[in-house]
């Protein structure tokens, strides 16, 4: 029992730096939530259950635009598609004795950063370690969203407007450095910007969610066909 407890606490400790970074991203998501009319309790639950920046942003846009539930499901699938890949490779980190309950709960906790933390473990993943890290990070993430929603209500409009670009700036900070490393990604980003701008301008009746779905499917299929990635040594 005490071994499990120490694994849990070790997870909590390693989750702290992740949690700190999450707070800022979640705060800017909270600003967008406020604009879409999402209340603080709703925002807390949305963030705790989804804990994904792109996925939640897609959900917020859908709520703000009163999109259909089918479109909401599709755009969530697209925005969270990378977790599918992570889930595949995550399965290799579990000892064969791991229970279904632990597999489901650990899978639920997958985020980019927590996945990185988990696969960095030298041997099989201890579920308790992962729960510690997840709870620390996810509670901070959900709290950050609530602070963003409340901040968006209390702060003057001029400041809220300035803060509302923070999320997009963070998106840029995620994709642009990879574009610098990988020329195919750089070309894709540029193509995505241009085609998204053109579609938004000439087909404004197309919702943002639909735009994300169509462009992601088309551009990524083209890229995967013409520039397949070499097998990584995993």
């Amino acid at each position: 029992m005490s071994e499990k407890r120490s694994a849990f606490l070790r997870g909590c400790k390693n989750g702290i730096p992740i949690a700190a970074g999450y707070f800022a991203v979640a705060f800017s998501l909270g600003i967008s939530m406020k604009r879409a009319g999402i209340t603080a309790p709703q925002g807390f639950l949305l963030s705790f259950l989804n804990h994904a920046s792109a996925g939640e942003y897609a959900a917020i846009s859908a709520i703000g635009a009163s999109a259909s539930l089918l479109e909401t499901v599709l755009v969530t699938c697209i925005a969270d598609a990378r977790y599918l890949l992570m889930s595949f490779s995550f399965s290799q980190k579990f000892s064969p004795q791991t229970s279904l309950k632990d597999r489901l709960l650990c899978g639920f906790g997958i985020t980019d950063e927590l996945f990185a933390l988990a696969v960095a473990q030298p041997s099989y993943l201890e579920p308790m370690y992962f729960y510690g890290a997840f709870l620390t990070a996810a509670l901070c993430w959900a709290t950050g969203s609530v602070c963003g929603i409340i901040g968006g209500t209390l702060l003057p409009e001029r400041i809220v407007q300035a803060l509302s670009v923070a999320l997009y700036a963070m998106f840029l900070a995620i994709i642009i450095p990879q574009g610098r490393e990988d020329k195919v990604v750089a070309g894709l980003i540029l193509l995505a910007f241009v085609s998204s701008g053109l579609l938004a301008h000439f087909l404004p009746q197309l919702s943002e969610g639909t735009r994300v779905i169509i462009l992601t499917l088309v551009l990524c299929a083209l890229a995967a066909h013409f520039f397949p990635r070499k097998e990584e040594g995993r």
Partner: protein
Amino acid sequence: MNTWAYILVTALTAFLIRTLPLTLIRKPIRNTFFRSFLYYVPYVTLAVMTFPSMITAAGKLPAGIAAFVLGIFLSYRWLGLLPTAVFCCLCVFLCSLL
């Protein structure tokens, strides 16, 4: 439609995406097209979400364009998530004072 319905639906979708491969398929994917496709997805998705929404979020067009260009420049210089965000917010705020 009720916001709670959206929350439930997105949470369930996200849960299934994260747990289905982990519980059902316990072998790594070998298909190069599928692996490459999933590798490229986040970049295109985030790029489409960022442009042109970032420009319109700022309120005024010049402020939005300035923040977008600054954001690309700063992230190209590996400034990191938080500093890039702070400077872009400052940029929009200063533009609103002009």
